[in-house]
């Protein structure tokens, strides 16, 4: 048995329970709260050692609430960085020194911090960033828009996308459990759509707050993070990698592959702790298939019900909970027998559409329609999704005035 599993109480005096008990078995009570407050509730039960913060709308409140947890004794270290660039570096330091660490940011903050994310991944730090997506410049906007996820796809971090505050709560806790598996051990970026989730209230079911995850055990890390004898520290130290020769190229490439392979190895754990990489919703026979994540998926679900009940059109949703690892197999399965795939998104580039097209290339003839797409803070009422489907099917649009 691991040493940490024998610990009965954590620093805050909470009873340490198994992840399975905390996530699935503990009795839960209903609360009514915002996404930001839910971050606090999750961190409170996650035996977090360190958090570093920098304000940016819409995540400042969540960062503030984690500070309250520190004041209440639930978080070991709480530090204020001087920019997101320093925050993500300081957080890396916290992890390298053996702590479980979490932070939050949004939009321009994510981009400011960017150089750190591949470093986190390459250093195999199981950090967690809760990303409350907002638009990025220019023009300046603070509105919801998840374009920034597109920039993060290839950083070597896992990326999960929560649909609701409830799911955000569960993902933060499950996130540490999956990210810290010795054969995974890569960072996790837990995304929600800013404002839609961070600033609205919903009913969430929470386990008691006197129980918490087992503390992080840095000794089960696949690499001693600040040991220069082992990769990647060793790679950095040894002069051979600093040279331009075949060994240096191969060393770098193999490590890049290893980071991506580590993300792939997270799949069984995600199946266990998130109950799958995807969620299916609607008519299993649905010939209209929406592939979506986050708030876009929530809107697609509403549109699906309208299509089924008001229009007599069989529709369903494949909601992706994870974007890295990408549920390619699940998507391939889901498109079988489908007439049209629609991918609604809250950004201009259609990063999810791009990803889906990529995995389906040469595997299906089903038309993939990357719409509706809204951006810059616009909302996506289910009516416009329904309208889009009716238009493509050549049906009369009576739903929307």
């Amino acid at each position: 048995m691991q040493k940490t599993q024998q610990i009965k109480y954590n620093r805050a005096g909470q009873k340490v329970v198994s992840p399975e008990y905390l996530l699935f078995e503990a009795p839960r009570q209903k609360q009514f709260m915002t996404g930001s407050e839910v971050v606090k509730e999750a961190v409170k039960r996650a035996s977090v050692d360190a958090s570093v913060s920098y304000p940016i709308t819409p995540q400042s409140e969540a960062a503030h609430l984690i500070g309250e947890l520190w004041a209440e004794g639930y978080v070991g270290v709480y530090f204020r960085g001087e920019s997101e660039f320093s925050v993500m570096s300081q957080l890396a330091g916290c992890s390298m020194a053996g702590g479980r660490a979490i932070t939050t940011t949004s939009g321009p903050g994510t981009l400011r911090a960017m150089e750190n994310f591949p470093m986190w991944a390459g250093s195999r730090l199981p950090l967690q960033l809760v990303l409350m997506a907002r638009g990025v410049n220019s023009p300046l906007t603070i509105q919801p828009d998840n374009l920034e996820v597109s920039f993060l796809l290839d950083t070597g971090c896992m990326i999960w996308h929560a649909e609701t505050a409830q799911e955000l709560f569960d993902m933060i806790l499950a996130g540490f459990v999956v990210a810290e598996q010795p054969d995974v051990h890569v960072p996790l970026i837990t995304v929600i759509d800013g404002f839609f989730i961070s600033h609205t209230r919903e009913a969430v079911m929470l386990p008691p707050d006197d129980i918490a995850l087992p503390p992080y055990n840095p000794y089960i890390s696949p690499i001693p993070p600040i040991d220069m004898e082992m990769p990647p520290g060793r790679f950095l130290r040894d002069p051979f990698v600093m040279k331009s020769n075949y060994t240096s190229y191969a060393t770098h490439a193999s490590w890049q592959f290893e980071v991506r392979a580590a993300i792939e190895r997270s799949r069984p754990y995600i199946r266990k702790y998130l109950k799958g990489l995807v969620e299916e919703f609607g008519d299993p026979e649905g010939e209209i298939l929406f592939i979506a994540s986050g708030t876009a998926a929530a809107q697609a679900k509403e549109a699906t019900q309208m299509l089924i009940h008001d229009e007599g059109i069989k529709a369903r949703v494949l909601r992706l909970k994870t974007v890295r690892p990408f549920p390619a197999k699940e998507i391939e399965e889901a498109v079988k027998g489908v007439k049209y795939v629609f991918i609604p998104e809250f950004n201009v580039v259609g990063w999810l559409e791009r990803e889906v097209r990529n995995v389906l290339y040469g595997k299906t003839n089903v038309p993939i329609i990357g719409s509706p797409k809204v951006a810059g803070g616009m909302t996506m009422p289910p009516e416009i999704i329904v309208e889009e489907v009716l238009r493509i099917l050549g049906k009369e649009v009576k739903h929307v005035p």
Partner: protein
Amino acid sequence: MAHFQQLEVQLKPADYRSDIEPTWCPGCGDFSVVAACTKAFSELKLPPENIVQVSGIGCSSRAPLFMKSYSVHTLHGRALPVAVGIKLANPNLTVIVQTGDGDLFSIGSGHNPHAARRNIDLTVICMDNQIYGLTKNQVSPTSREGLYGSLTPYGTIDKPLNPIATMLAYGATFVAQTYSGNPKHMTEVIKQAIVHRGFSFVNVLSPCPTFNRVDTFKYYKSRTKDINKELGHDPTDYSKALELAFHDLDHYYDPNAPVPIGIFFKKETETYHDRVNAVKARYKAVDKPTPELIQSFVDACKPKAI
């Protein structure tokens, strides 16, 4: 002739105001900065089309929106490097950075030493409210110890950064401090900062009545002391300037210490562009190369016939 362009006919300060109404809270210190800037522009007869005001992100960084000049609202912390780029490309422009204590001394602080030590001819106006206003109350690097902010539950335990001493140490050739409650002083200081050839830094104590309940107009009112007029400080003396700067924040710890305002340091010395021009002169550079000159370069690069 001034080294910047001037109008023949003076415009009124109001002519430098844009038609955008400020979105600042009532009583915000930053209103005075717009008033002082437009007055300074008017008195210096600056052509509005020759002024470029560059800002980052923050309440203070909105200042250029409310004035009639060219302006750029850049990224949080990046006003200075964008301004440097503008000045490099067109040295004839009067380039002014409008920024905040967070924008300039927290996320953007990495740019300050380099713009200052190179003595690039810019004017940096920092609206120092010792707080992050726009993001609703977090402490900044200039916040006094103990100040409460939403990300510092027990108040900040960090020592504040001293903007005047910092910029002096970095090599700024004009360093001053002024105060939003003294518009006359502020206008005079901003005028001198713009006229100064070289890197000018003006720290404006500009209270945020909404979030900073400690460093208020009321607090400053009886404490500001004009270092030039009242203390007879000679701004050409760099060591005296530094010495005085070291006491800039004494009032945080000593209720009897004054809040110094005035020009700490001012020295006209060669600017970045002067040095570039010296290099050009050394290598006999011309601004408009002739086809013959270009051909001579091409010929010089051709391999010599063996």
